[in-house]
Each structure stands twice: as C-alpha cells, then as structure tokens.
C-alpha cells in the first residue's frame, strides 16, 4: 500500500479544521446531527473478516461505496483486502490516492469523461471496469489507447439482480471475445454481484438464491472458457452472502463492503458484524404524544431499501414507533412514559448508512464515546468535485 496522497491529507486537515474542536470531548457534546464511527467496532469487524479469510477460497476486495472513507479503505487493506471495489470512477480515484494498488469499478462507465478518467487513473494503479456492452468496450479501448494504459475488464453477468449485466452465456461470450480482441483492454473475467440475495431477509431463502446465482455464474464462466475466453477472475458477493460465495471454489474474489462500517439493514442478515456507524441527534421538540429529532430523510436517506424496512430509530428507545419522516425531522410516537425531553442528545440507528454517508461531510471517530479524530467523506456527491482535473494533471 502506498502512502496517502496530499489530496487525502488535505481533506483530512480541512475537516479536522472544521470539526476538530470536538476532539477529546464526549460524542454527546457534538453539534447534531453528527455521523459517528466507533473505531473499536470497526476494527473488530475488519479483524473478524480477516480471521475468516484463510478458510475461504476467494480473496477479499473491499467495497467502499457504503463508507466513502479513504481511512476506512486503508484499514480494509491492512486487514486482508488485496484491493478495493468502487461504484463510481470518482470513488476509484479517491481510493487509489488513498493508497490502493488495485481497484475495481464494479459498474458501467459509458460516459466519455468517466471512461477517460478511468483510463488516466490506470497510470497510477491496476484499474478494472465492468462492461456488458460491446460498444462500451470499444469506447473504453479507445480511451485506454489514448491514455497509453491498459484497463482490466470484467464482463458483468446478471446473476438475478436484474440491473446491468449480460443476460445469457452466449451474450457474455460475445462481449468477452470483443474485449479479448480490443487493444488497451485485458479480459480478466466476470463480475456477478448477487445483490438480489441482499434483499431477501429470510436466511434459508437467501442461501438458496445465492447458490442458484453462483451456479449460474460459474456456468457462464465455463461457457467462456470452453470457447477460448479464459476467466481468471470471478468476482461476486456482498456482506449478506460473503461466507457462502467465498466458499465456492470457483469464485476468486469477494466484493463486499458493508461488513466494515455496518448498519441495521445488514445487521439483520449478518449479525456477526456489529454496527460501527451511527449518528448523534438532538430532541428538538417534545409534544405530549411524540418526540421530534433534528435529522430527517435528507440525512438518513430512506427508511427503506427497496421495499424492505431499514429501521432508523433511537438507541435505548427502539420501541418508539415512527410517526413520520420529513426532510429535516424524524417524528416518533412517545407518550408520557418516555423520558426524552427537548435538548436531549441521543444515539441514533441510521438504518441504511450508505444514504447518510452520501450526505455528511465527515465522520466523528470515537473510542469509548470520546471523539478521537475527524475523517473526511470522499468523494462527496454525484459530481467529480475536481477529481477529473486531478487525474488529468497527474501524468502531465
């Protein structure tokens, strides 16, 4: 792992400058709502995953989209991950600058600026990209040739999630052959995240769906290999399926991410990882039949993932029923037996943390309830925020 790039240390300095007055103080003294990550729980999650790696056939590629933290990403690399996985090219830029030598953008890029950014980033690290379309592969090839780099390619296979990904072994072979023949591209194998299994809360049903998805995934690889397209990499899995998929002798790498920072949604499926990321919030209004908090859907995103409840709720008051979630307010039913009052600062379960992480500027890192550091969230938002100019200027 390389050292942190100045863009990461500058961002770290910036958020420490903004929020560093909280360091050394109790998390309950923070200006709320504040995003909190418990470093001991984070380390325990990473250590648990690392302890399970020897028994798994596949290697660990830590996904970063759920935490967007260069600091957490480095800890993933220190705890057994050989590389990282990103949802966007801008996340990939940040994570390479955080020190990763290997990054997979487990997504289609398509946009010409994003293709160019990935091709330029390949000057700094081994960059791999998903494709499911021959024309996209051709354009990636042109971008890599123009940049004088090589992009690793995984053909994305739809293993049942019904998002992107080729629909059949024949289509996979067609795209794989095209990739093989294109300059600037290296046909690395297949990517097949079984995300539909992470929307199945029932343990047995999830396992059945996972097994079916990976059986199909491997059969697609067999078809390519039998037809002269080797697939040295088969990448799949999320936190809810990692130990099953990782035990499949054909799967070579796992692309889970939530295991590190965790949330209530994933905790329902995989309680061996503990919730490291929470929020601290303030009761701003106390009515006789309800309490109102100073965070809402702009902060924790949604109370559901798809149609599944993610359960944003108050620590120690988990029984309180949500009344309504507005943009800047969460309102819970609470009669006089609930002792919450205006000004109380309490811990909050965020439900599904990737949404919250998407909105905050920084994590307040705590140990034993005391703030010990401030970590930046990078990249922030859907725009490139200057990362495009950064990769462009790197080789100039």
């Amino acid at each position, binding site marked *: 792992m390389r050292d942190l790039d100045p863009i990461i240390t500058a961002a770290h300095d910036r958020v420490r400058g*903004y*929020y560093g*007055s909280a360091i050394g103080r109790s998390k309950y003294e923070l*200006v709320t*709502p*504040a995003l909190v990550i418990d470093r001991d729980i984070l380390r325990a999650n990473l250590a648990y995953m690392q302890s399970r790696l020897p028994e798994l056939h596949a290697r660990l590629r830590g996904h970063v*989209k759920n935490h967007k933290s260069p600091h957490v990403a480095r800890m993933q690399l220190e705890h057994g991950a050989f590389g990282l996985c990103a*949802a*966007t090219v801008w996340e990939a830029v940040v994570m390479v600058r955080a020190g990763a030598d290997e990054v997979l953008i487990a*997504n*289609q890029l*398509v*946009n010409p*600026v*994003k293709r160019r950014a990935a091709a330029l980033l390949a000057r700094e690290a081994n960059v791999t990209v998903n494709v*499911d*379309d021959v024309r*996209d592969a051709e354009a990636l090839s042109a971008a890599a040739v123009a940049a004088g780099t090589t992009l690793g390619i995984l053909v994305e296979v739809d293993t049942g999630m*019904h*998002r*992107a*990904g080729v*629909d059949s072994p024949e289509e996979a072979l067609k795209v794989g052959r095209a990739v093989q023949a294109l300059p600037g591209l290296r046909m690395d194998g297949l990517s097949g995240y079984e995300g539909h299994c992470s929307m199945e809360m029932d343990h047995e049903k999830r396992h059945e769906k996972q097994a079916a998805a990976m059986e199909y995934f491997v059969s697609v690889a067999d078809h390519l290999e039998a037809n002269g397209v080797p697939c040295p990499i088969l990448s799949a899995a999320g936190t809810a399926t990692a130990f099953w998929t990782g035990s499949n002798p054909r799967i070579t790498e796992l692309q889970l991410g939530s295991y590190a920072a965790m949330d209530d949604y994933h905790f329902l499926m995989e309680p061996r990882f503990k919730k490291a990321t929470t929020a601290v919030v*303030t*009761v*701003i*209004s*106390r*009515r006789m039949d309800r309490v*109102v908090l100073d*965070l809402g*859907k*702009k*902060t924790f*995103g*949604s*109370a559901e993932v798809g149609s599944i409840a993610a359960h944003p709720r108050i620590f120690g008051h988990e029984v309180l029923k949500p009344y*309504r979630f*507005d*943009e*800047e*307010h969460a*309102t819970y039913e609470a009669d006089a037996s609930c002792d919450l009052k*205006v*000004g109380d*600062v309490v811990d909050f379960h965020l439900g599904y943390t*990737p*949404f919250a992480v*998407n*909105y*905050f*500027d*920084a994590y307040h890192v705590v140990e034993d309830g005391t703030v010990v550091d401030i970590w930046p969230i990078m990249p*922030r*938002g*859907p*725009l*490139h*925020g200057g990362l*495009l100019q950064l990769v462009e200027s790197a080789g100039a």
Partner: protein
Amino acid sequence: MNDPAPLVTDAHERVRDLYRSALGRPRDEVTTPALLLDLATLRANLELMADGMRDAPATLRAHVKVHKSPHIARMQVEHGAIGVGCATVWEAIVMARAGISDVFVINEVVGPEKTRALALLAREADVKASVDDAAQVDELSAAAVAAGSTIGVLIDVDEGMHRCGVTTTAEALPLAQKISQSPGLTFLGLTGYEGHCSLEFDEAKRHAMAREAMAQLTGIAADLAAAGLPCQIVSAAGTGTWGTTSRYPGVTEIQPGSYATMDGHHRGLDPRFGWAVTVLASVISRRSDRIVTDAGSKTVGASHGVLKGWDLEKYRFDEEHSIFLADASVPLTTGDKVEILCNYTPFAISYFEAYHVLEDGKVVDIWPVMPRGPESRWLLDMLERGT
C-alpha cells in the same frame, strides 16, 4: 439587498472553475449525473408567484431549504420576497451572506452551538427563529444576551401536521409572555406550516384543510392580541396552499419554497409552476427488457422519479442506478442522455455541490449548492472570527 459576501462569491468561483468545461456546451455534453436548472422556467415560476401575490394581503417569504442556492434566493427577493425562510441555522448564515437581511429559521433551534450561531448572525442580519417550548426560549435568550444581539421569536403552532408546535392558546400564551419578558428576544408572532395539506392531492379538500388550519392559527393570534401580546407576524403556507393561505384574513406572510424549482409532488399540487430542476443521467446499460441509468437513490433521493419524455415504468432504484422497464420498442440505447423528473427535488439537490444552469439548452453558469450536508459547524467558526 446587499451584495453577496466572499463566502458565496468564492463558492461560485470555485464551482465555475471545477465545471468550466461544461460552460457554453449543450445539455447532452454535460457529464452525468448532473443537476440541471432551466433558467427560463425558474424565472417564469418566480414571475407567476409575484403575479399571484400582487393583490394578496400577505407578503411572500421564500423558503430556501428546497434549493439551497444563494443565487435562486436572490432572484426570489428580486421577485418580491421580503426575505427567506430556512430549515437550519446554517442555511440562514449562507442566505444572510448572500445579501438577504431578513432570515427566519422556521424550525426549533436547539443546542448551544446552533443558538450561538443564530445569536452571532443576529448582529449582521434581521434574524428570526421559532420555538414551541420554554427551554428553547431560555437558550435563545442566553445566547442573544451573550452576543449582544436581538433575535425575533415566533411560536410554532401545530395546525394538523403533527410535527413540532403548540396546539392551543393555553400553551401559546405563557410561551408568548415568557418570550416578551426574555432579554435579547422580541416576540413577533406565530408560524404554522400546514404541511399536512400538502399531502392531500384533492384541491377542494386541501384548501378546506388549509382554511381550517388558518382558523386555528389566526384564532390563537387573536387570543394573544386580546391578552396584550399582538402578533406582528402570522406566517404559514407551502406551495400546495399558498393561494388560499395568502388571502386568509390575519395571515401576514406565506413561506412557500418549492414553487421556484418544483418537482413531481408539488406539480401534483400546483401544475401552474414548471419543472425547473431535473437530474441529467446517462443510459449505462441496455437490456432486452429494461434500461439502467447512472443516477440512483444516492443522486435522486429516496423519493425517486420518472423519465422526462419517456413513459417508462420504474423497475427499481438502487444507490447508483435507476432501472426502468423498456422493451425493444423503446429506442433508448447505451450512452443516451435522459432527464429524471424527481418526485421530490430537495433530496437530489442536497446531494449535489452545484447546479448546471441552462438557457436555451446550453450551460450558461454553474451555481453552488450551499450549505452542503447537515454539519456545518465551520460556519459558526466563521461568525466567531468575525470574518
């Protein structure tokens, strides 16, 4: 209106520089996903509201939590708004530095840093906040005294939305008395957003609900006046009820915000206002039965959206993808640009750092979204440094 301060002009320069390659380019050349603002539609919306308010007894206070844009807020003031409404103290700081002197945090401000920020801001602007509890009054008063400033205070009335707010004169009167006797505070009146009405799409029912809510709000105002505490301000309304509420006797100002940028939810309430803000996305995967775009719930927000110009059923929104059903008869292909009409635009806006501003289909400017995110304590540090 004052000139914008460096906080705002520097942010504008910064995003113009970051996204300068888009300036002068047509919409389809913008890197996706991008937040688009159509200037002509925005202006038409602002003019429509100005026309509608010309003969209304109430004045217009424009809510900014919807757009978080100093530029749009200034245009709202140019189109007749007396000032702005904000959801957070951080928004109020940005809007005051955008040059708008009348800023009202239409929310309970709780916590020592937030009340201190509000009190410090009151040194440079006409600052108002709302309360529904004696503890908040004590905190605001102590902060204002410490800062040597005066904060205007309105009592938040729950007229049926069931969020914050007192419900009766019996609750409001002692609170009003306490405010009027608290150093550093001025009792200004009542605020009562009838947000529950904006969840009712039947127009007749919605306006009846709004009138009922206003009867309660103005009734409490009359009771306070009779007890010697007249309400200088009685503030209410959103985009779904502005027409009725702005003409209800006793209401002095309305506080709508969505009318400027609009979205699917508010177009369902008042379709006279046009869709000024959309999200530009690319089709990144074309399957036999669906298309996948690069704007998901981390971009568009929890309330999702539909595609402009394409009547396609939503299949699913994931974090970084939205998926719409599209058979072979739909001529969309990988790389095509689509615009997502958000059902609720404030979520999308809160994720972006800037708007790509379009006129006649070309990018003419980049405007910052400010403040970004829920934690903006650095704005307090800025006030404390006196910079």
